Every structure is written in structure tokens, then in C-alpha cells.
């Protein structure tokens, strides 16, 4: 229960309201218990004495007590509405802020669905438990004690029978909830799996249709739906069993009490009024007694939810702002990697470091292309610059200052990124592109004019003029909830976003992969201008992207094995030729070797033949290279 105790930090100022609610509930229940006593007075007094006039004040008393009970009942709820929901909201905001602060490697491990259930349903459960569960558990326990006391005082034998017969119900209720919540969790998991199957069947519909595998997906879906069904039926069976208990146990208790009570009344040991009051009290107590088991289980669920909440809150953030941050007013943009090592936490022991001693310096204003085979760690290297991950050895510096010495926010103002899988948020095109320029938000005319200028320029560079033609122009919502854009369109907007941020250093991870040749060429031409004054690190797969760069760094086995201009590397590095030259370029190179003119003559048929002939040769070379790669 320590986890639940920790909640007090969030309850804080709401505490008096919860206590007040508890008191209101308690008084209401105690009033409910006094009504049978009045009933007894009526039966044994006016009714036994045939005194009609005396009935009126007592009936009015019942009415008055009933009204007060109802009012207190309302008060109990009213008191916790505001405070309870505020506690929930506070916890939700805290969780969200914490999650945003936690590093990317945390998010790699936690699927967003898991986080979502914590942020929504778990916190709702905690709120309900605080507002109702906790209040009613305390109140019901007191009411049962008082109620059984009253029954005992009326007649110890009847009270004892009632108490003893009720005990199994507590036990059954508790045991039921244990099993039931186990099944509930199972069914939640299975429902989650089923939802995954559905999502995949929809997202992968092109594949399923292309291969005609709808049946295959269906059988997978069917079997998951079936196991969910059997869990649900097992749940219903437990539910059915507990209802037998809830119905039968009180029936046994009350039938014994009825028989014994009548006998006692006939003996004159019990008045008729007391017998009436006994059954009326037993009716009042029925629900609190039934609820004890459920309430215990409710507390257990709330504890689980609280644990899950604190799991996240207690997660240690490994990438934090330094205690004494350094600051740069206008960085020149010298980006240096010095003996950088990195490995993912979950990477198996037998694998070496993914980045195994990277040394690379980008001078201010320089554009450096980063080239290497898929999976060699290029994207990871780019992520180190803005501390999406932290190096596990060595250092990354901006103008000689370790990136870990900046506040994260400042660092990310200096360095902007565009990712290969372009994420857009559910907001207008304008907001998405100006994401890195929060100072340009707002309706002030001068700010607005500047924003429009930046926007226009960024969209022009990224060849994203299509955005003007969207249904609502730049105010069209994109992202999850908005217009769906093609991969190429999203990539161009993401590029515009990085450009609009006007950073000292621009980091682009294969930013043009989804563009067609013509668009790509236009983007490149436009990029060249801004790259003249900005330091840039560009991950490249294609020769055309490499052309943007002043120098190229070749990555191989977690190291930078060569740095130089494109043509230098083509000349000097076998691996570079292997990585960057396509079949046809090989052909062309071969052709240039044979005909080393700097400006080849216009295409002729014979030259084409020559090219094709050379292609075979190149192919053979490429194959050789492949084989060498494989045996290395």
C-alpha cells in the first residue's frame, strides 16, 4: 500500500475535500441506519397503541432524516468533483511532462499504447478510487461495525447469526475479485493483440491484397478473437458464481434470522417492532457487506495503476540539462566528433559498439555528406548531435563546447534536424514548418509578416509549393488528424521545417529519399544556396545528394575511414566506390577512363553502344567488389 500512500503528494490541497466527503458519506449512512429505529418506534408505539396522531411526527421524522440523507449523499459527491478531477489532471500533466523529458531510448523501449493506457485509463481509475473507493471503503467498514452493533443490541442471537453468515461473502467477494481482475487483465491483453491484428490488417492491406492473403490474416484474427471470446466467457462464469454467493448467502442468513426471529417474537423476547427494525437494518447493511470484497479488489487495482504511474515518474532521466549550462550567442557552427563511441543499451554483449571511435570535424559553413552502408550507424551519429542520445564514450562539441554542457533547448536551437521518416504534427502546414521558430507565432502584424517571409522562403527551398494548393492553403491541417500527404510531400515539409529554423548547424538524414528525380534536383539546387553559409551534416545514399557536399565522410564498421571530396574518395577508396556508385555510374566511369575528356561530346549512338559495352565490364567489377565485401 506504500504506492497508494505516495499519492498524497498529488492529493495535497484536495485532502480536506476528501475528508469532508468521507464525513458526509459516513453521516448519511448512519442516518440510514437510524431510520429502521424510527420504524421500530412507530410499530411498537403508535401502531401497537392504535394512536393515529402519534404516527404523524414519526413519519415526518423519517421524511426529514431521508431528506438529510439525500442531501449528504449529494454533498459527498459534490465535494470531490472538483478536487478529484483536479488531482487526476495534475497527475496527467505531470506524467506528460515527464514523458516528454525522458530521452529517446526510453521511448524506444515503451510502445506508445502502453504509455497511453497509463495516461488515460489508469489515471481515471486512480481518480475514481480516491473519490469513491477510498471514501466508501472507510465508510462501509464503519457502517458495518455500527450496524452489526445495533443488530446485536436489539438481539444478540439474531445479530450473531447475521454476522457469521455474512463472513463467507467477504471471503468470496475478495477471492472473486482476485480471479476476476486476473481474467480482466488477460482479456485486456488479448483485446490489445486483437487490435494489433486489426491495425496490421488495415495498414498492410496492400500487401494482403497483392498476395491474396486476406484468408491468412482472417485466420490469425479469428484465432485471436476466439481466445478473447473464451476469456470473456470465463469472466462471465466467475461473475455468475459470485452472484450465486451474493444471492444465496444473505438468503440463508435471513431465512434463519426470520425463523428464529419469529420464534423469539412468539416467545415475547422480541417485539414486533424490533423484528421489523431488524429486517429494515439488514436491508440497509446488505450493500456495504456485499461491497467489502469488491472494495478491497478496487484498492488492489488502484495500487497497480499507481505503481504503473510511478514506474514512469521514477524512471531516471539519463539526458538532462547540466547544473551550470554554458551558452553561445552566435555559434560559428564548428561541429566536432572526438573518439565518439555509442552502443544501444539493449544491444547484445557479443556485438561491438555501433559507433566505435568516430573522429570528424566540420568547419563552420562546411557541408559534409555522411556515406555508408545501410545499418552502419549514420542515423545514430546524427542523433548524437542534438542529444537525442548521449555518447557512451568520447564527445561531440559545438564550437569547442561539449553538447552536454548546453541546455538542451539551446542546443536544439543551434542545431536543427530533418529525419528520414518525416513526422508532421496535427496542426496547420504553417505551424508545422515554423515549429522551430516559436517566436514567429502570434498575430502581431510585424511578426506575421516575418513569419510569412520565412515560410515562403523555406517552402521555396524545399520545393513544397504544393502546400499553397491544399484545400485551405497553408492553414490546412496535416498529420494524424489532417490531410494525408504522400511520403515525398511530408519529406519536403520536414525539410522546410529544418530550413526555417535557421540553425547554425543543419543535420539532414537522407532528406530526399522519397522524392522523384526532377524534384530532387530542384531541391538540391535551392539547398546549395543556404548550405553556403550553414554548417551541414547530410546522410546520403545517392551520388546526387553527395554532390551538395564540400566534403564526404565515409563510415565503415563504426568508424570514419575516409574524408575527402567526392572525386578524391572515388579515386582513393574502394569501399566508397562500392557504396556510392551505381551500375551505370560505374559504366560511365569506365567510359571516362577510356575517353578522359572533361566534357564528353554529345550523346551519339555509337557512344551509347560503348556505354552499354562498358556496362558489362562495370557489372563484373561490381560483382568483384561485392564478393570482396562478403569475404572481408
Amino acid at each position, binding site marked *: 500500500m506504500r504506492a497508494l500512500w505516495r499519492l498524497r503528494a498529488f492529493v495535497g490541497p484536495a485532502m480536506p475535500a476528501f475528508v469532508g466527503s468521507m464525513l458526509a458519506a459516513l453521516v448519511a449512512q448512519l442516518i440510514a441506519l437510524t*431510520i429502521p429505529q424510527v420504524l421500530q418506534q412507530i410499530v411498537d408505539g403508535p*401502531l401497537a397503541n392504535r394512536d393515529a396522531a402519534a404516527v404523524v411526527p414519526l*413519519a415526518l421524522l423519517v421524511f426529514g432524516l431521508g431528506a438529510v440523507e*439525500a442531501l449528504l449523499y*449529494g454533498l459527498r459527491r459534490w465535494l470531490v*468533483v472538483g478536487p478529484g*478531477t*483536479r488531482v487526476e*489532471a495534475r497527475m496527467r500533466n505531470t506524467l*506528460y*511532462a515527464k514523458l516528454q*523529458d525522458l530521452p529517446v531510448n526510453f521511448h524506444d523501449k515503451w510502445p506508445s499504447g502502453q504509455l497511453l493506457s497509463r495516461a*488515460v485509463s489508469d489515471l481515471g481509475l486512480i481518480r475514481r478510487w480516491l473519490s469513491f473507493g477510498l471514501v466508501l471503503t472507510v465508510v462501509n467498514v464503519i457502517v458495518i461495525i455500527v450496524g452489526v452493533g445495533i443488530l446485536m443490541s436489539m438481539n444478540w442471537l439474531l445479530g450473531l447469526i447475521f454476522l457469521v453468515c455474512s463472513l463467507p461473502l467477504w471471503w468470496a467477494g475478495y477471492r472473486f475479485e482476485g480471479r476476476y481482475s486476473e481474467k480482466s487483465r488477460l482479456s485486456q491483453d488479448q*483485446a490489445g493483440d486483437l*487490435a494489433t491484428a486489426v491495425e*496490421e*490488417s488495415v495498414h498492410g*492491406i496492400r500487401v494482403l*491484397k497483392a498476395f*491474396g492473403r*486476406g484468408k491468412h490474416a*482472417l485466420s490469425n*484474427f479469428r484465432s485471436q478473437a476466439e481466445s478473447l471470446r473464451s476469456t*470473456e466467457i470465463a469472466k*462471465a*462464469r466467475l461473475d*455468475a458464481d459470485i*452472484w*450465486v454467493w451474493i*444471492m*444465496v448467502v444473505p*438468503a440463508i442468513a435471513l*431465512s434463519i434470522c*426470520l*425463523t428464529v426471529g*419469529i420464534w423469539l*417474537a412468539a416467545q415475547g423476547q422480541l417485539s*414486533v417492532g424490533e423484528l*421489523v427494525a431488524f*429486517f429494515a437494518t439488514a436491508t440497509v447493511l446488505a450493500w456495504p457487506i456485499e461491497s467489502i470484497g469488491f472494495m478491497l479488489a478496487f484498492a488492489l487495482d488502484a495500487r497497480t495503476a499507481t505503481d504503473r504511474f510511478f514506474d514512469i515518474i521514477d524512471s531516471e532521466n539519463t539526458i538532462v540539462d547540466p547544473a551550470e549550462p554554458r551558452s553561445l550567442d552566435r555559434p560559428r557552427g564548428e561541429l566536432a566528433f572526438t573518439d565518439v563511441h555509442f552502443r544501444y543499451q539493449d544491444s547484445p554483449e557479443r556485438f561491438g559498439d555501433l559507433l566505435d571511435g568516430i573522429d570528424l570535424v566540420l568547419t563552420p559553413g562546411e557541408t559534409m555528406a555522411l556515406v555508408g552502408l*545501410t545499418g552502419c550507424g549514420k542515423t545514430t551519429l546524427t542523433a548524437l548531435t*542534438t542529444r*537525442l542520445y548521449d555518447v557512451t564514450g568520447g564527445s561531440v562539441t559545438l564550437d569547442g563546447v561539449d553538447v552536454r554542457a548546453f541546455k*538542451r533547448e539551446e542546443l536544439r536551437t543551434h542545431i*536543427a534536424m530533418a*529525419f*528520414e521518416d518525416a513526422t508532421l*504534427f496535427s496542426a496547420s502546414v504553417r505551424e508545422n514548418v515554423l*515549429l522551430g521558430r516559436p517566436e514567429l507565432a502570434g498575430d502581431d502584424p510585424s511578426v506575421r509578416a516575418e513569419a510569412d517571409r520565412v515560410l515562403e522562403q523555406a517552402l521555396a527551398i524545399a520545393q513544397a509549393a504544393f502546400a499553397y494548393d491544399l484545400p485551405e492553403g497553408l492553414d490546412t491541417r496535416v498529420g494524424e*488528424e489532417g490531410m494525408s500527404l504522400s511520403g515525398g510531400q511530408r519529406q519536403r515539409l520536414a525539410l522546410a521545417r529544418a530550413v526555417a529554423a535557421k540553425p547554425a548547424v543543419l543535420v539532414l538524414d537522407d532528406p530526399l529519399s*522519397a522524392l522523384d*528525380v526532377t524534384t530532387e*534536383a530542384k531541391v538540391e539546387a535551392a539547398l546549395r544556396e543556404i548550405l553556403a553559409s550553414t554548417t551541414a551534416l547530410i546522410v546520403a545514399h545517392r*551520388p546526387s545528394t553527395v554532390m551538395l557536399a564540400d566534403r564526404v565522410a565515409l563510415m565503415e564498421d563504426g568508424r570514419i575511414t575516409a574524408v575527402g571530396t567526392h572525386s578524391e574518395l572515388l579515386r582513393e577508396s574502394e569501399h566508397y566506390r562500392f*557504396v556510392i556508385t*551505381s*551500375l*551505370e555510374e560505374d559504366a560511365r566511369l569506365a567510359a571516362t577512363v577510356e575517353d578522359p575528356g572533361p566534357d564528353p561530346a554529345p550523346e551519339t549512338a555509337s557512344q551509347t553502344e560503348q556505354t552499354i559495352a562498358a556496362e558489362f565490364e562495370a557489372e563484373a567489377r561490381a*560483382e568483384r567488389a*561485392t564478393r570482396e565485401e562478403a569475404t572481408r
Partner: protein
Amino acid sequence: MSVTGVQGEERDEYSKTESAQIRARSRALLGSLLAPLHAKLWVTAAAIVVSSAAQVAGPALIAYGIDQGIPALINQNWFPVAFAGLAYLFTGLIGGVLIATYIRISARISQAVLIDLRTRVFLHTQRLSLEFHESYTSGRIISRQTSDLDAIRELLDEGLTLLVRGLMYMVFTAVMLLIIDAPSGLVLLASLIPLGILTRWFQLRSQAQFRRSRVASARLIVQFVETMTGIRAVKAFRKEKRNEEEFGRLVEDYRGVNARVLGLFAVFNPGLALIGNTAVAVTLLWGGFRVVDGSLEVGVLLAAVLYTKRFFDPMEDMAMFYNGYQSASSALEKISGVLEEQPSVPDPAKPVDLWKAEGTVRFDGVRFAYTPDRDVLPEFDLEIPAGQTIALVGSTGAGKTTLAKLISRFYDPSDGRVSLDGVDLRDLHPKDLRRAIVMVTQEAYLFSGTVADNIAIGKPDATLDEIKDAARAVGAHDFIESLPNGYDSDVNKRGGRVSAGQRQLISFARAFLADPAVLILDEATSSLDIPSERLVQQALQTLLADRTAVIIAHRLSTVSIADRVLVMEHGRIVEDGSPEQLIAGTGRFAQLHAAWRDSLV
């Protein structure tokens, strides 16, 4: 505006005929779901009637015991006492057992309905054409199958049980009260008037608030999920603070709506208690007078008071689930809309078998348009002889993908026919069609499961050796072997740490394993690095040697393996010839080729 199918789904207001139409179709759906379950339904109805009666008998038996048992026992007659005690026990047992029976059977019914509905929606979703999926978006079709079905499940699971049982309990209580003491019954009936007013008020208010609450929570969830899935971009562009403000606003909205809902309950529930307690006091007063003048027994008065008090018990729960009922019925309306959608690419009524396809693809007078006023592909003819490799070239939006989708029958032509070996694709048996024609797209989707499972989608009964051979053929074997568990590595959701290029290699292996007569590659190599692309191209030359192939590529390098190039512009084929012919000419392809060569400098 029409409301057929999924049209008008996003609207809040419908005209009378429209909402009648929508209700009719969801009623029809419900009817067809329940049709096979009639016998079970009757059993549950019987169980619930008897168990409610048994549950309600209790107080009457107590009254009997007090009024008849005490005097009889004074005369040493044990019978009424024993009868009351045993009957009380018996009704408890019967009630308990029948309620248990009811719960079990109704769970079977609701699960049968659910699984039937799930399967229908799932199958129908798969059957609907890509055209539908592209316009309806994946998010919506997924929420039809998840959150909407959840709403129905919640109602069936608990809500319906509570509603039906509560209602029966109230009816029986009222009837019983009228039987044992009509005046008390009248008091209870009179209390129905304020009860009705209060409930109606609650219904109207809560309906609006619950709808708002659903909207608010949906917004909250979208913001949350978007932040977490896009966390890199959030961090890279310092969106944290702005997000916190935005999220804080959404949380506050949601809290506000929730507080209003809870506030409604804080009025409704005490209101119920007040009405109940007042009714008890009046019953007591009037009954007391009648006991005094001897026209009513004390025991009956007690029973009347207990009945009146207990009558209101189920109301709270029923009010809760009224909203469940609301959201379930709106979910059912949306689902029935999806089910009403007709697939625009239907399976043939009389399928023609084609056991062994040669691979000749013909377009005869084919025209294609999404909307009648704008042709995407104006009328054209085209023959692709078996075994030929075609490259489709042209700028974005020229209609290359549409042409490819016609061959793979993701779409049907608006006019004319597309045929394989002389058989209209619309008549071809779906199995034969999918075996003969396979399309690989740029977006290489991986399903959760192992790498081997994913390749095996091309051929479900493939052995591991066949799978490995396919992977080797496209050059994916080496990287797969270097994964932590080789072919048994889990690709995680959405491809996990398998890179975009590696995903494409896996989907290539998938197509290779399927071994179709006609292979369509839609930018299937866009994310590969150059060495992989080189390997794939080598593989393609053997792979495509004896089959028909259509390749869409942005990069001219891929075009070099084609026998024939089609250049498309604005939906028309503007150039058609061998690569050499076209390069030698002065057309679009020659220009593209020159531009591409320049870019290599």
C-alpha cells in the same frame, strides 16, 4: 445529402428521413446478428423473469412470517414459520441460480454477436477496394473495428445485463407492491412522475456532456500519441513547452467535461434518494394510519416500506448505462455504414480458373477515372507480351501507379477491360489472380512476427530453405543472418529497428518467393542503398527473365534492365519503345536520360 454507406458519418445532425434510414440499417444489422440466437434469447428471457420474481418475493415472505407466523406459533403451529423460512431460502436459491444461468447464457449470446460482428467487419474491410481505404483513411477503419466494437462490447458485457435486470426488478417490485398493498403501490406509482422528470433531465443533459467527453478524450489521446510517436521531432524542435501548454489545455477541457458529468450524477443520485425516501415516508404515514384503523397488517407495512426503498436501487446503474447504450448505438450506426459500402472491385460471380498463367497482359479501350468529370487515364490500348519487362517512366502524378493498380486489380477500369492471357481480370478466380500477379510497393509493410514469417507471406507453405533461397536471391540473406536471432528475429511493430531499405529487401524476398507470372514493382527500390540496389538489379535480371514485369522507377538506373520503356504524361503514354530507341530519339526519355547523366558529374 445521402447517408448511404459511410457518407455523412462525421455529421452531428441528420434530417428525419436520414436518421430513420440509419436506424433502419443498424436495426437490420442487429436483427441479422441475433437471428441465429433465438433459442438462447428465449431461455435468458425466461431466466430473467423467474429470477426477478424470486428476488422480489423476499419482503412479502417476511411480511407473511410476521403477520401469520407469530400468531400461529403462539398456538404452537410451526407450519407458517417453517413455510416462510424455507420459502425465503428457496427463492434466494432459485434467484441466485437463475441469475447465474442468465449471466452465463447472456455472455455467450453477446460474445457470439461480437465475434460475428468482428468477423463481418474484418472480412468486409478486406473485401473493400483500395479506393475506399484511400479515401476513408486507416485511422477511421481501425477505430470502427476497435473503439466502436468496444463500445458495443461494453454495453453487451455489463450494460445490457444491468439494464434488463434492473428494469425487470423494478417492474416486478411495483407489481408485487400493488398486489400486497394497492395504496402503497399507488404511492410508488405517483413517485414515478418526479422520477420521470428527473431521469429525463439527466438523460438530456448527460447525453450532450457524454458526447463532449468523448470528443475531449479523443483530442487528448491524439495529442498524447502524436507526441510519443513523434518524440524525436518534438525534442529536435523544442516543442516540449508548447506541447505542455497545449496538453494542459486539453487536460483541463477533459477535466471540465468530466467534472460536469460527475456533477450531473451528484444531482441525479441524491435526487433519486430524495424521491425514494419521500416515497418511503409517505408509505409509512399512510400505511401507519391504516394499521392503526386495522385495515393493514404490520408485516405488510414493513414489506411495503422495503419494496418502496428497494424499487429505486437499480436506477443509478441504469442511468450509468444509458450512456453506454447511446455510444453503442452510434457505434453500431457507423459500423452498419461501413458494412453497407459495396466493394468497387467485387469478386467474380462465376470465376474463371487459370491454372497456369503465361503472363500476357492486355488493356482494351481502358479508361479510368475516380470521378466522372476527370479522367486519370484517358482511353488507351496496350499489350504487354508474356515475358516482357516494361519500365514505366514519368513525373509524379502521371498515372504510372494507377496503371499498375489496374493490372493488379486494386482498381477496376471505368471503361474497357484489362485481361490476363485473354481472361478479363474481373472474371478471374481471385486465387489465380493473386497467384499470377503480384505487386510490390514502395511502402514495404512488415507484419509483427519473425522475418521468416514475413517472407512466407509470399507463399504460406514455404519451407525455411525456400525462404532462405528467396532471401539469398535478393541479397537479403546476409543482413538477416546478422540480426540477433537471424530468420527468427522479431521485426517488432512497424518494422522496429529494421531500416527502410532492409524492409524493402524483405518485401522483395516475399515477392520472389511468391513466384508470380506477372510482377509489378512500384518504386520498390527507393530506400535501398546502392550496393543493395545493385544486388537487387542483378537478381531482377534472372528473376524477370521468364516473366512479365512492370517496373515503376524514379531512378533511371532501374530502367536499364527493361526491354521496353513507356513514358507517361498526364495519364497518357507518350513514348513507347526500347530504351536504346528512346535514348537515340529526342523525346522526353532522351531528355531525362541526358539530365540524369549530367547529374552524375
